[in-house]
Protein backbone atom coordinates (compact mmCIF):
# COMPACT_ATOMS: atom_id res chain seq x y z
CA UNK A 1 0.00 0.00 0.00
CA UNK A 2 1.34 3.37 -1.00
CA UNK A 3 2.20 5.57 1.99
CA UNK A 4 0.82 8.96 0.94
CA UNK A 5 1.70 10.62 4.22
CA UNK A 6 5.36 9.64 3.88
CA UNK A 7 5.45 10.89 0.28
CA UNK A 8 3.89 14.20 1.25
CA UNK A 9 6.34 14.62 4.16
CA UNK A 10 9.26 14.07 1.80
CA UNK A 11 7.85 16.40 -0.87
CA UNK A 12 7.13 19.20 1.57
CA UNK A 13 10.63 18.98 3.05
CA UNK A 14 12.25 18.98 -0.39
CA UNK A 15 10.18 21.84 -1.84
CA UNK A 16 10.69 24.19 1.10
CA UNK A 17 14.37 23.39 1.44
CA UNK A 18 15.13 23.81 -2.27
CA UNK A 19 12.97 26.81 -3.07
CA UNK A 20 13.05 28.72 0.22
CA UNK A 21 15.98 27.20 2.14
CA UNK A 22 13.55 26.44 4.96
CA UNK A 23 13.44 23.33 7.10
CA UNK A 24 9.92 21.98 7.45
CA UNK A 25 9.67 19.76 10.53
CA UNK A 26 6.80 17.28 10.06
CA UNK A 27 4.39 16.42 12.82
CA UNK A 28 3.32 12.83 13.48
CA UNK A 29 0.54 13.10 10.90
CA UNK A 30 -3.04 11.89 11.00
CA UNK A 31 -3.91 9.25 8.38
CA UNK A 32 -7.59 9.54 9.25
CA UNK A 33 -8.28 13.20 9.56
CA UNK A 34 -11.59 14.71 10.57
CA UNK A 35 -14.24 15.40 7.94
CA UNK A 36 -14.90 18.17 7.29
CA UNK A 37 -11.49 19.62 8.09
CA UNK A 38 -10.81 23.25 8.78
CA UNK A 39 -8.08 25.35 7.23
CA UNK A 40 -7.37 29.05 7.64
CA UNK A 41 -5.25 31.81 6.23
CA UNK A 42 -3.99 31.42 2.68
CA UNK A 43 -5.05 28.03 1.34
CA UNK A 44 -3.79 26.53 -1.89
CA UNK A 45 -5.41 23.57 -3.60
CA UNK A 46 -4.67 21.37 -6.57
CA UNK A 47 -6.98 18.59 -7.75
CA UNK A 48 -6.01 15.19 -9.11
CA UNK A 49 -8.15 13.31 -11.59
CA UNK A 50 -7.71 9.85 -13.08
CA UNK A 51 -6.72 6.62 -11.35
CA UNK A 52 -5.68 8.78 -8.43
CA UNK A 53 -8.28 11.44 -7.72
CA UNK A 54 -8.74 13.91 -4.95
CA UNK A 55 -7.46 17.25 -3.73
CA UNK A 56 -4.30 18.44 -1.98
CA UNK A 57 -4.78 21.48 0.26
CA UNK A 58 -2.00 23.56 1.76
CA UNK A 59 -2.93 25.85 4.65
CA UNK A 60 -0.51 28.72 5.22
CA UNK A 61 -1.02 31.33 7.90
CA UNK A 62 -0.84 34.85 6.46
CA UNK A 63 2.48 35.38 8.26
CA UNK A 64 3.98 32.14 6.93
CA UNK A 65 2.77 32.85 3.38
CA UNK A 66 4.36 36.32 3.44
CA UNK A 67 7.58 35.00 5.00
CA UNK A 68 7.92 32.26 2.39
CA UNK A 69 7.22 34.75 -0.43
CA UNK A 70 9.92 37.04 0.94
CA UNK A 71 12.36 34.16 1.24
CA UNK A 72 11.75 33.05 -2.34
CA UNK A 73 11.36 36.38 -4.10
CA UNK A 74 13.55 38.62 -1.98
CA UNK A 75 12.95 41.33 0.58
CA UNK A 76 10.17 43.88 0.16
CA UNK A 77 6.44 44.09 0.55
CA UNK A 78 4.79 41.61 -1.77
CA UNK A 79 1.21 42.31 -2.84
CA UNK A 80 -1.51 39.83 -2.01
CA UNK A 81 -1.65 38.36 -5.50
CA UNK A 82 2.10 37.67 -5.46
CA UNK A 83 1.87 35.92 -2.08
CA UNK A 84 -1.08 33.92 -3.41
CA UNK A 85 0.96 32.99 -6.47
CA UNK A 86 3.77 31.66 -4.27
CA UNK A 87 1.29 29.59 -2.25
CA UNK A 88 -0.28 28.29 -5.47
CA UNK A 89 3.08 27.36 -6.96
CA UNK A 90 4.24 25.58 -3.80
CA UNK A 91 0.98 23.64 -3.78
CA UNK A 92 1.45 22.84 -7.46
CA UNK A 93 5.00 21.56 -6.94
CA UNK A 94 4.10 19.45 -3.88
CA UNK A 95 1.16 17.93 -5.73
CA UNK A 96 3.12 17.56 -8.97
CA UNK A 97 5.79 15.57 -7.16
CA UNK A 98 3.05 13.44 -5.57
CA UNK A 99 1.51 12.89 -9.01
CA UNK A 100 4.88 11.69 -10.38
CA UNK A 101 5.10 9.01 -7.70
CA UNK A 102 1.46 8.00 -8.11
CA UNK A 103 1.93 7.66 -11.87
CA UNK A 104 5.06 5.55 -11.36
CA UNK A 105 3.10 3.36 -8.93
CA UNK A 106 0.40 2.68 -11.51
CA UNK A 107 -2.09 5.47 -10.76
CA UNK A 108 -1.96 7.71 -13.85
CA UNK A 109 -3.61 11.02 -13.16
CA UNK A 110 -3.84 14.65 -14.21
CA UNK A 111 -3.41 17.85 -12.24
CA UNK A 112 -5.60 20.91 -12.18
CA UNK A 113 -4.37 24.51 -12.14
CA UNK A 114 -3.76 25.59 -8.52
CA UNK A 115 -6.35 27.79 -6.84
CA UNK A 116 -5.84 29.90 -3.75
CA UNK A 117 -8.47 30.87 -1.19
CA UNK A 118 -8.18 33.25 1.72
CA UNK A 119 -10.31 33.16 4.81
CA UNK A 120 -10.53 32.93 8.56
CA UNK A 121 -12.09 29.47 8.49
CA UNK A 122 -12.27 27.34 5.38
CA UNK A 123 -14.12 24.03 5.73
CA UNK A 124 -13.15 21.33 3.25
CA UNK A 125 -14.55 17.85 2.75
CA UNK A 126 -14.69 15.09 0.16
CA UNK A 127 -17.17 12.34 0.90
CA UNK A 128 -16.14 10.20 -2.07
CA UNK A 129 -12.44 10.03 -1.09
CA UNK A 130 -11.71 7.12 1.25
CA UNK A 131 -8.32 8.58 2.13
CA UNK A 132 -8.24 11.72 4.24
CA UNK A 133 -4.90 12.50 5.79
CA UNK A 134 -3.41 15.54 7.38
CA UNK A 135 -0.09 16.68 8.73
CA UNK A 136 1.39 19.83 10.19
CA UNK A 137 4.85 21.15 9.40
CA UNK A 138 6.64 23.45 11.79
CA UNK A 139 8.98 26.22 10.62
CA UNK A 140 11.18 26.99 13.56
CA UNK A 141 12.57 30.13 11.95
CA UNK A 142 9.16 31.77 11.83
CA UNK A 143 7.49 29.81 14.65
CA UNK A 144 4.68 29.08 12.21
CA UNK A 145 2.94 25.96 10.96
CA UNK A 146 1.79 24.73 7.58
CA UNK A 147 -1.15 22.34 7.30
CA UNK A 148 -1.38 19.84 4.48
CA UNK A 149 -4.63 18.00 3.92
CA UNK A 150 -5.06 15.31 1.28
CA UNK A 151 -8.32 13.76 0.10
CA UNK A 152 -7.60 10.87 -2.23
CA UNK A 153 -9.11 7.88 -3.96
CA UNK A 154 -6.80 5.36 -5.61
CA UNK A 155 -8.26 2.99 -8.23
CA UNK A 156 -6.13 0.72 -10.43
Amino acid at each position, binding site marked *: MIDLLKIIDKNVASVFL*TMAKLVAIPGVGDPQAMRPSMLKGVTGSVSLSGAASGVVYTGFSQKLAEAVATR*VLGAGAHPEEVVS*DVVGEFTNIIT*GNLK*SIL*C*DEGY*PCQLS*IPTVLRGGEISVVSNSAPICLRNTYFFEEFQEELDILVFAKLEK
Partner: protein
Amino acid sequence: MPTPKILSVDDSKMIQTLISKGFASYSVQLFFASNGVEGLAAAARELPDLILLDVTMPVMDGVECLMKIKGDSSLRDIPVIMLTAEAGKDNVLKIAKMGVRDYIVKPFTEQGLIDRVSRVVDLKAKGVDVPRTKSIDDNIIVMVIDEHQAIVESIRAGLSAMPWKVIGTDECGAAAQMMAKEQPDVVLISLSLPNKAAISFYQTIRASFRSQTMPVLGLSVKTATAEQTECKNAGFNGVITKPIDVTDLSARLARAMDLDTSSRYFHIKDSILFIKIPNGLSIGQAADLTQYIEPKTKSLVESGMSRIVLDLSEVDRLEIYMIKLILGLVATCRALDIKCRMVGSVEFTNQAKAYEEMTELQVFPSIELAVADFDK
Protein backbone atom coordinates in the same frame (compact mmCIF):
# COMPACT_ATOMS: atom_id res chain seq x y z
CA MET B 1 28.09 37.08 -30.33
CA PRO B 2 24.52 38.37 -29.89
CA THR B 3 22.94 38.18 -26.46
CA PRO B 4 20.93 34.95 -26.24
CA LYS B 5 17.16 35.23 -25.99
CA ILE B 6 15.33 33.01 -23.53
CA LEU B 7 11.55 32.74 -23.45
CA SER B 8 9.92 31.47 -20.25
CA VAL B 9 6.37 30.22 -20.61
CA ASP B 10 4.96 29.76 -17.11
CA ASP B 11 1.79 30.95 -15.43
CA SER B 12 3.54 31.41 -12.09
CA LYS B 13 4.90 34.85 -11.30
CA MET B 14 7.07 33.15 -8.68
CA ILE B 15 8.80 31.03 -11.30
CA GLN B 16 9.21 34.03 -13.59
CA THR B 17 10.79 35.98 -10.73
CA LEU B 18 13.14 33.11 -9.91
CA ILE B 19 14.18 32.92 -13.56
CA SER B 20 14.81 36.68 -13.62
CA LYS B 21 16.88 36.43 -10.43
CA GLY B 22 18.79 33.42 -11.70
CA PHE B 23 19.84 35.12 -14.93
CA ALA B 24 20.39 38.57 -13.41
CA SER B 25 24.16 38.26 -13.60
CA TYR B 26 24.22 36.92 -17.16
CA SER B 27 23.95 38.68 -20.48
CA VAL B 28 20.62 37.31 -21.69
CA GLN B 29 17.35 38.79 -22.95
CA LEU B 30 14.42 37.30 -21.07
CA PHE B 31 10.86 37.19 -22.36
CA PHE B 32 7.87 35.92 -20.44
CA ALA B 33 4.53 34.45 -21.38
CA SER B 34 1.95 33.10 -18.95
CA ASN B 35 0.33 30.35 -21.05
CA GLY B 36 0.84 28.34 -24.20
CA VAL B 37 -1.02 30.74 -26.50
CA GLU B 38 1.00 33.73 -25.35
CA GLY B 39 4.11 31.56 -25.50
CA LEU B 40 3.57 30.66 -29.16
CA ALA B 41 3.02 34.31 -30.05
CA ALA B 42 6.16 35.38 -28.17
CA ALA B 43 8.19 32.57 -29.75
CA ALA B 44 7.09 33.61 -33.27
CA ARG B 45 7.85 37.25 -32.52
CA GLU B 46 11.22 36.88 -30.77
CA LEU B 47 12.54 33.60 -32.23
CA PRO B 48 14.34 32.87 -28.94
CA ASP B 49 17.44 30.72 -28.57
CA LEU B 50 15.71 28.68 -25.88
CA ILE B 51 12.20 28.17 -24.51
CA LEU B 52 11.63 27.21 -20.87
CA LEU B 53 8.17 25.65 -20.87
CA ASP B 54 5.95 24.84 -17.91
CA VAL B 55 3.53 21.91 -18.24
CA THR B 56 0.45 22.79 -16.21
CA MET B 57 -0.89 26.15 -17.39
CA PRO B 58 -4.30 27.64 -18.12
CA VAL B 59 -5.61 28.34 -21.65
CA MET B 60 -3.04 26.09 -23.35
CA ASP B 61 -0.82 23.74 -21.38
CA GLY B 62 2.84 23.05 -22.02
CA VAL B 63 2.34 19.75 -23.82
CA GLU B 64 -0.03 21.27 -26.38
CA CYS B 65 2.23 24.28 -26.75
CA LEU B 66 5.21 21.99 -27.36
CA MET B 67 3.26 20.07 -30.03
CA LYS B 68 2.46 23.33 -31.82
CA ILE B 69 6.09 24.49 -31.60
CA LYS B 70 7.30 21.21 -33.12
CA GLY B 71 4.65 21.46 -35.82
CA ASP B 72 5.73 24.94 -36.89
CA SER B 73 8.65 24.95 -39.34
CA SER B 74 9.83 28.35 -38.13
CA LEU B 75 9.87 27.30 -34.46
CA ARG B 76 10.60 23.57 -34.41
CA ASP B 77 14.39 23.99 -34.18
CA ILE B 78 14.24 26.19 -31.08
CA PRO B 79 15.46 24.07 -28.15
CA VAL B 80 12.85 23.57 -25.43
CA ILE B 81 13.51 22.73 -21.80
CA MET B 82 10.43 21.63 -19.90
CA LEU B 83 10.13 23.02 -16.41
CA THR B 84 7.81 20.73 -14.54
CA ALA B 85 6.87 19.37 -11.15
CA GLU B 86 5.66 16.22 -12.86
CA ALA B 87 8.66 13.97 -13.35
CA GLY B 88 6.99 10.57 -13.43
CA LYS B 89 8.58 8.06 -15.82
CA ASP B 90 5.65 8.08 -18.27
CA ASN B 91 5.51 11.85 -18.30
CA VAL B 92 9.24 12.16 -18.93
CA LEU B 93 9.09 9.58 -21.73
CA LYS B 94 6.12 11.31 -23.32
CA ILE B 95 7.90 14.67 -23.20
CA ALA B 96 11.17 13.19 -24.47
CA LYS B 97 9.40 11.67 -27.47
CA MET B 98 8.12 15.11 -28.37
CA GLY B 99 11.65 16.35 -28.89
CA VAL B 100 12.46 18.45 -25.85
CA ARG B 101 16.11 19.13 -25.22
CA ASP B 102 15.93 18.63 -21.48
CA TYR B 103 13.63 18.95 -18.51
CA ILE B 104 14.06 20.59 -15.13
CA VAL B 105 12.10 19.18 -12.25
CA LYS B 106 10.53 21.56 -9.76
CA PRO B 107 11.63 22.30 -7.10
CA PHE B 108 14.83 23.62 -8.61
CA THR B 109 17.64 25.87 -7.48
CA GLU B 110 18.76 28.93 -9.43
CA GLN B 111 22.14 27.27 -9.93
CA GLY B 112 20.53 24.08 -11.22
CA LEU B 113 18.57 26.15 -13.72
CA ILE B 114 21.69 28.02 -14.91
CA ASP B 115 23.64 24.76 -15.25
CA ARG B 116 20.96 23.17 -17.43
CA VAL B 117 20.42 26.24 -19.57
CA SER B 118 24.16 26.73 -20.09
CA ARG B 119 24.28 23.33 -21.79
CA VAL B 120 21.95 24.65 -24.47
CA VAL B 121 22.84 28.33 -24.90
CA ASP B 122 26.20 30.01 -24.56
CA LEU B 123 25.75 32.01 -21.37
CA LYS B 124 28.16 34.79 -20.60
CA ALA B 125 28.41 36.47 -17.22
CA LYS B 126 27.78 40.21 -17.39
CA GLY B 127 31.03 42.12 -17.64
CA VAL B 128 33.01 39.04 -18.61
CA ASP B 129 34.61 40.98 -21.47
CA VAL B 130 36.28 43.28 -18.99
CA PRO B 131 39.68 41.71 -18.45
CA ARG B 132 41.08 41.02 -15.02
CA THR B 133 38.23 42.00 -12.81
CA LYS B 134 40.18 40.88 -9.75
CA SER B 135 43.54 41.99 -8.49
CA ILE B 136 46.05 40.47 -6.09
CA ASP B 137 44.87 42.99 -3.49
CA ASP B 138 41.34 41.56 -3.52
CA ASN B 139 40.03 39.04 -1.02
CA ILE B 140 40.86 35.99 -3.07
CA ILE B 141 39.67 32.61 -1.78
CA VAL B 142 42.05 29.69 -2.27
CA MET B 143 40.61 26.24 -1.66
CA VAL B 144 43.04 23.45 -0.83
CA ILE B 145 41.91 19.81 -0.83
CA ASP B 146 44.65 17.58 0.48
CA GLU B 147 44.74 14.52 2.70
CA HIS B 148 47.63 16.05 4.63
CA GLN B 149 46.71 18.96 6.86
CA ALA B 150 50.38 20.04 6.78
CA ILE B 151 50.03 20.88 3.08
CA VAL B 152 47.03 23.09 3.78
CA GLU B 153 48.97 24.81 6.55
CA SER B 154 52.09 25.31 4.43
CA ILE B 155 50.02 26.95 1.68
CA ARG B 156 48.26 29.11 4.26
CA ALA B 157 51.64 30.17 5.65
CA GLY B 158 53.05 30.75 2.17
CA LEU B 159 50.19 33.08 1.31
CA SER B 160 50.04 34.83 4.67
CA ALA B 161 51.48 38.03 3.21
CA MET B 162 48.54 38.26 0.81
CA PRO B 163 45.04 39.48 1.75
CA TRP B 164 43.81 36.06 0.66
CA LYS B 165 41.81 33.44 2.50
CA VAL B 166 42.87 29.81 2.40
CA ILE B 167 40.14 27.26 3.09
CA GLY B 168 41.13 23.64 3.39
CA THR B 169 39.69 20.18 3.72
CA ASP B 170 40.87 16.61 3.26
CA GLU B 171 38.02 15.26 1.16
CA CYS B 172 35.91 16.25 -1.83
CA GLY B 173 32.48 15.92 -0.22
CA ALA B 174 33.33 18.57 2.35
CA ALA B 175 34.92 20.67 -0.41
CA ALA B 176 31.67 20.58 -2.41
CA GLN B 177 29.72 21.77 0.62
CA MET B 178 32.24 24.56 1.22
CA MET B 179 32.01 25.58 -2.44
CA ALA B 180 28.24 25.80 -2.22
CA LYS B 181 28.59 28.30 0.62
CA GLU B 182 31.62 30.20 -0.61
CA GLN B 183 32.83 30.10 -4.21
CA PRO B 184 36.64 29.92 -4.27
CA ASP B 185 38.70 31.74 -6.90
CA VAL B 186 41.10 28.85 -7.34
CA VAL B 187 41.19 25.20 -6.26
CA LEU B 188 44.32 23.21 -5.40
CA ILE B 189 43.61 19.51 -5.10
CA SER B 190 45.83 16.58 -4.23
CA LEU B 191 46.12 14.12 -7.11
CA SER B 192 46.80 11.30 -4.67
CA LEU B 193 43.35 11.36 -3.07
CA PRO B 194 41.86 7.85 -3.13
CA ASN B 195 39.81 6.54 -6.08
CA LYS B 196 41.02 9.31 -8.40
CA ALA B 197 38.79 11.70 -6.50
CA ALA B 198 40.70 14.70 -7.85
CA ILE B 199 39.71 13.88 -11.44
CA SER B 200 36.06 13.30 -10.48
CA PHE B 201 35.97 16.52 -8.49
CA TYR B 202 37.56 18.42 -11.36
CA GLN B 203 34.86 17.11 -13.72
CA THR B 204 32.17 18.18 -11.25
CA ILE B 205 33.63 21.68 -11.13
CA ARG B 206 33.76 21.93 -14.91
CA ALA B 207 30.21 20.60 -15.27
CA SER B 208 28.83 23.54 -13.32
CA PHE B 209 28.42 26.73 -15.32
CA ARG B 210 29.28 28.77 -12.25
CA SER B 211 32.69 27.18 -11.86
CA GLN B 212 33.50 26.04 -15.37
CA THR B 213 36.27 28.63 -15.78
CA MET B 214 37.61 28.38 -12.23
CA PRO B 215 41.31 27.49 -12.27
CA VAL B 216 42.03 24.06 -10.80
CA LEU B 217 45.60 23.01 -10.07
CA GLY B 218 46.76 19.56 -9.03
CA LEU B 219 49.07 18.96 -6.09
CA SER B 220 51.48 16.11 -6.65
CA VAL B 221 54.90 14.85 -5.58
CA LYS B 222 57.50 15.48 -8.27
CA THR B 223 58.03 11.80 -9.07
CA ALA B 224 54.34 10.93 -9.53
CA THR B 225 54.45 11.64 -13.24
CA ALA B 226 51.64 9.27 -14.19
CA GLU B 227 49.05 11.10 -12.09
CA GLN B 228 50.36 14.45 -13.32
CA THR B 229 49.95 13.37 -16.95
CA GLU B 230 46.46 12.10 -16.19
CA CYS B 231 45.45 15.39 -14.61
CA LYS B 232 46.85 17.43 -17.50
CA ASN B 233 44.97 15.23 -19.96
CA ALA B 234 41.80 15.77 -17.94
CA GLY B 235 42.22 19.52 -18.44
CA PHE B 236 43.63 20.78 -15.12
CA ASN B 237 45.12 24.27 -15.34
CA GLY B 238 48.44 23.02 -14.03
CA VAL B 239 50.28 21.06 -11.39
CA ILE B 240 52.10 22.34 -8.34
CA THR B 241 54.68 19.85 -7.15
CA LYS B 242 55.33 18.95 -3.53
CA PRO B 243 57.27 20.08 -1.59
CA ILE B 244 55.60 23.34 -2.52
CA ASP B 245 57.85 26.29 -3.31
CA VAL B 246 55.89 28.87 -1.35
CA THR B 247 58.14 31.76 -2.45
CA ASP B 248 56.63 31.75 -5.93
CA LEU B 249 53.21 30.41 -4.93
CA SER B 250 51.28 33.70 -4.90
CA ALA B 251 52.68 34.64 -8.33
CA ARG B 252 51.82 31.20 -9.66
CA LEU B 253 48.27 31.38 -8.38
CA ALA B 254 47.87 34.97 -9.58
CA ARG B 255 48.80 33.83 -13.08
CA ALA B 256 46.39 30.89 -12.87
CA MET B 257 43.59 33.25 -11.82
CA ASP B 258 44.68 35.92 -14.31
CA LEU B 259 44.74 38.50 -11.52
CA ASP B 260 45.79 42.07 -12.05
CA THR B 261 49.18 42.12 -10.31
CA SER B 262 50.19 45.61 -11.42
CA SER B 263 49.81 47.10 -7.93
CA ARG B 264 52.73 44.91 -6.88
CA TYR B 265 55.02 46.83 -9.23
CA PHE B 266 53.45 50.17 -10.10
CA HIS B 267 52.42 53.19 -8.07
CA ILE B 268 52.13 56.91 -8.77
CA LYS B 269 53.40 59.57 -6.40
CA ASP B 270 53.88 63.28 -7.09
CA SER B 271 53.01 62.78 -10.76
CA ILE B 272 55.79 60.23 -11.15
CA LEU B 273 55.18 56.58 -12.05
CA PHE B 274 57.35 54.37 -9.85
CA ILE B 275 58.09 50.87 -11.07
CA LYS B 276 59.46 48.69 -8.29
CA ILE B 277 61.38 45.56 -9.23
CA PRO B 278 61.50 43.15 -6.28
CA ASN B 279 64.64 41.23 -5.48
CA GLY B 280 64.59 37.72 -6.91
CA LEU B 281 62.14 38.63 -9.67
CA SER B 282 61.35 35.35 -11.42
CA ILE B 283 61.06 34.90 -15.19
CA GLY B 284 57.33 34.52 -14.78
CA GLN B 285 57.06 37.73 -12.76
CA ALA B 286 59.20 39.56 -15.32
CA ALA B 287 56.86 38.41 -18.08
CA ASP B 288 53.91 39.47 -15.96
CA LEU B 289 55.41 42.90 -15.34
CA THR B 290 56.43 43.38 -18.98
CA GLN B 291 52.86 43.09 -20.20
CA TYR B 292 51.85 46.05 -18.04
CA ILE B 293 54.57 48.40 -19.27
CA GLU B 294 52.95 49.51 -22.51
CA PRO B 295 49.45 50.19 -21.12
CA LYS B 296 50.84 51.85 -17.99
CA THR B 297 53.17 54.16 -19.90
CA LYS B 298 50.45 55.06 -22.41
CA SER B 299 48.07 55.80 -19.59
CA LEU B 300 50.74 57.97 -17.96
CA VAL B 301 51.14 60.07 -21.09
CA GLU B 302 47.37 60.33 -21.62
CA SER B 303 46.97 61.69 -18.10
CA GLY B 304 49.55 64.41 -18.74
CA MET B 305 52.50 62.89 -16.84
CA SER B 306 55.88 62.08 -18.33
CA ARG B 307 58.23 60.84 -15.61
CA ILE B 308 59.11 57.29 -14.54
CA VAL B 309 61.46 56.02 -11.86
CA LEU B 310 62.51 52.41 -12.27
CA ASP B 311 63.40 51.28 -8.77
CA LEU B 312 65.88 48.39 -8.77
CA SER B 313 67.36 49.30 -5.38
CA GLU B 314 66.43 45.91 -3.87
CA VAL B 315 67.85 43.88 -6.74
CA ASP B 316 71.20 42.33 -5.87
CA ARG B 317 71.47 39.93 -8.79
CA LEU B 318 70.91 41.04 -12.37
CA GLU B 319 69.50 38.38 -14.68
CA ILE B 320 69.35 38.48 -18.48
CA TYR B 321 65.55 38.62 -18.48
CA MET B 322 65.73 41.69 -16.20
CA ILE B 323 68.03 43.40 -18.69
CA LYS B 324 65.49 42.69 -21.43
CA LEU B 325 62.80 44.17 -19.23
CA ILE B 326 64.84 47.30 -18.48
CA LEU B 327 65.85 47.86 -22.09
CA GLY B 328 62.26 47.33 -23.22
CA LEU B 329 61.06 49.96 -20.76
CA VAL B 330 63.77 52.42 -21.83
CA ALA B 331 62.81 51.96 -25.49
CA THR B 332 59.11 52.52 -24.69
CA CYS B 333 59.94 55.67 -22.73
CA ARG B 334 62.01 57.03 -25.60
CA ALA B 335 59.19 56.33 -28.05
CA LEU B 336 56.69 58.18 -25.85
CA ASP B 337 59.03 61.03 -24.80
CA ILE B 338 58.88 59.91 -21.19
CA LYS B 339 61.78 60.79 -18.90
CA CYS B 340 63.02 57.64 -17.16
CA ARG B 341 65.47 57.42 -14.27
CA MET B 342 66.86 54.21 -12.83
CA VAL B 343 67.74 53.56 -9.19
CA GLY B 344 70.01 50.68 -8.21
CA SER B 345 72.26 49.38 -5.48
CA VAL B 346 76.05 49.33 -5.80
CA GLU B 347 75.91 45.57 -6.56
CA PHE B 348 73.35 46.15 -9.28
CA THR B 349 75.35 49.04 -10.79
CA ASN B 350 78.54 47.00 -10.90
CA GLN B 351 76.78 44.05 -12.53
CA ALA B 352 75.06 46.35 -15.05
CA LYS B 353 78.45 47.67 -16.21
CA ALA B 354 79.30 44.17 -17.44
CA TYR B 355 76.57 44.39 -20.10
CA GLU B 356 77.31 46.56 -23.10
CA GLU B 357 73.63 47.42 -23.64
CA MET B 358 73.46 48.81 -20.09
CA THR B 359 76.58 50.95 -20.09
CA GLU B 360 74.80 54.00 -21.52
CA LEU B 361 72.18 53.96 -18.78
CA GLN B 362 72.73 56.11 -15.70
CA VAL B 363 71.95 54.44 -12.38
CA PHE B 364 71.15 56.66 -9.39
CA PRO B 365 72.02 55.42 -5.88
CA SER B 366 68.74 56.72 -4.36
CA ILE B 367 65.21 57.64 -5.34
CA GLU B 368 65.70 61.19 -4.04
CA LEU B 369 68.64 61.78 -6.38
CA ALA B 370 66.80 60.22 -9.32
CA VAL B 371 63.75 62.44 -8.73
CA ALA B 372 65.92 65.54 -8.29
CA ASP B 373 67.54 64.81 -11.66
CA PHE B 374 64.21 65.28 -13.44
CA ASP B 375 64.42 69.03 -12.75
CA LYS B 376 67.96 69.49 -13.98
